[in-house]
C-alpha cells in the first residue's frame, strides 16, 4: 500500500525568491523508514510539515493512504500522525505522564487504559515508569525529554510518524543509543516513518530508503545501498564522499 503520495507539490514562502518545494512528486510505501536528507533550507522540513498540514501546499496534491489530506479536518488528521520535533516541545507544566497522555485524554480514553498505555510507552522508550511518570520535563536530561517526546507521539499508534531532526540537539553518545532504539521500535511496529536529518550518516544508518533533497527538489529516492553505489548526480556523489571522509556510513 502507498502510505504517502505527493503529486506535483509546490510551496513558496512569502518574501523568498526560490520555492521551498519545487514540483515535488514521490510515493512512499507503507512500512518504510524514510530519511529525508539535505542541508538547511533545502525544503526537507517543509516537506514533512506539509503532510500534517502545518503548512499548506500552494499547488499539487498530497495523499495519505489514498486519501487527499485537503479533504480531512486538520485536527483529526494530525491525531493520526505522530509528530516529533528537535526542540521537543514537552509541556513544562505537565508531568511526564500528563504529557504522554495529552491526546488520549482529549480522546477521553478511560483512566485504566491511559495508565496502562503511558506505562507501556515509557517502557518502550526505555524509561522506568515508576521513576519517571510523575516528574516534570525540567527534571529530565535532553535525551530523556526526547524519549518522552517519542512516547507522546507513539501512544495513539499512528500509521505515520513524522520526525523533524529529533536527535539534532542530543549529545553523540545518547544520539547513537536513541537511533538504535528508534530503529527497533520502527521494525516492531511496521509503521511508516519520515525522519528529517542533515546528518548523512544518520540518514544512511536509519533509513530503509533515503530522500535526498536540494533547493526544493528531490534529487534521489532510493535505498541507502543504491544511493551509495549509484548516486543520481554529482551533488549526491559529493554528499556520499563527505560521509566517507568522516569514516564511512
Amino acid at each position: 500500500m502507498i502510505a504517502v503520495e505527493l503529486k506535483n507539490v509546490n510551496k513558496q514562502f512569502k518574501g523568498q525568491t526560490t520555492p521551498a518545494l519545487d514540483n515535488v512528486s514521490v510515493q512512499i510505501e507503507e512500512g518504510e523508514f524514510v530519511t529525508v536528507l539535505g542541508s538547511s533550507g533545502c525544503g526537507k522540513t517543509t516537506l514533512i510539515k506539509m503532510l500534517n498540514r502545518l503548512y499548506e501546499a500552494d499547488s499539487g496534491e498530497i495523499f495519505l493512504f489514498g486519501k487527499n489530506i485537503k479533504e480531512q479536518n486538520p485536527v483529526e488528521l494530525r491525531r493520526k500522525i505522530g509528530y516529533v520535533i528537535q526542540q521537543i516541545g514537552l509541556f513544562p507544566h505537565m508531568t511526564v505522564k500528563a504529557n504522554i497522555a495529552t491526546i488520549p485524554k482529549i480522546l477521553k480514553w478511560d483512566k485504566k487504559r491511559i495508565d496502562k498505555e503511558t506505562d507501556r510507552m515509557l517502557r518502550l522508550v526505555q524509561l522506568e515508569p515508576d521513576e519517571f511518570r510523575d516528574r516534570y520535563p525540567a527534571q529530565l536530561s535532553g535525551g530523556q525529554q526526547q524519549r518522552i517526546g517519542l512516547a507522546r507521539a507513539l501512544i495513539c499508534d499512528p500509521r505515520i510518524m513524522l520526525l523533524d531532526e529529533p536527535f539534532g540537539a542530543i549529545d553523540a553518545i545518547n544520539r547513537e543509543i536513541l537511533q538504535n532504539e528508534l530503529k527497533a521500535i520502527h521494525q516492531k511496529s511496521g509503521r511508516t516513518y519520515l525522519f528529517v536529518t542533515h546528518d548523512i550518516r544518520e540518514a544512511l544508518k536509519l533509513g530503509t530508503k533515503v530522500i535526498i533533497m536540494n533547493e526544493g527538489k528531490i534529487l534521489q529516492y532510493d535505498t541507502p545501498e543504491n544511493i551509495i553505489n549509484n548516486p543520481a548526480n554529482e551533488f549526491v556523489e559529493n554528499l556520499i564522499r563527505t560521509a566517507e571522509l568522516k569514516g564511512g556510513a
Partner: protein
Amino acid sequence: MISEIADYFSRHGKDYLALLGGHIGISFISVAIAMAVAVPIGIAVYRSKIGSTIAERSFGVLRIVPSLAVLIILIPIMGTGVLPSVTALTILAIPPILINTVQAFQTLPKAMLEAADGMGMSTAQKFFKVKLPLAFPLMFAGIRTAVIEVIASATLASYIGAGGLGDLIFTGLSLLRYSLLIIGGGSVAILSLLTGFVLDSIYKQITKYQRT
C-alpha cells in the same frame, strides 16, 4: 504613645476591624474588576502589534497620572464614596495586569505551540491546556504588582470617602493624634508586606514545575 495605641484597640477594636475589612474589600473588588477587564483585552490584542501597542500605551498613560489626581478628577464626575474610589483603583490596577498578559502570550515558546498543533489539539484545547497555563505565571506577577499598588493607594481613597485604613491616617492628621497615624500607616504597611508574602508563596507554588 504605646498606651494610647493599646487604648485605641481596646475601645475601638470593632471599628478597626471594620476599617481593615473595608480596605481589603475595596482593594479586592478593584483588582477583581481590573482582571476582568485587562485579561480579556490582553488576550484579544496580543497577536496584533498595533492593537497591543495601543492598549498598553493608553492604559500606560493612565498609570503615569498620580493616583491621588485620578481620585480627585473623579469627584466632579462621580462624587465621593466607594464607587469613584473603586473606579480609580481599578484604573490603577489595569496596566500591570494588561501589560503582563500581553507579554505572557507574546513570549510563549514556539516549540510548545508547534507541538500542540502537531499532535492535533484544537484551537480551544491549545488555549486552555497549553497557552493559558504557560502564560499564567507572568500574568500572576502582574496581578501581584497590581494588588500591592492598590493596597497602598486605597489609603488615599479614604480621602474621597471610601473608608478603609486611610480614615485612621486622615483623622490622625486632622486631630494631630500620632497614635492613629502609626496605627493606620503601620497597618497598611503590614497588610502590604503580608499580602506580598502570601502572593509570592502562591507564585512559588504555581511555578514549582520550572525547577529542576
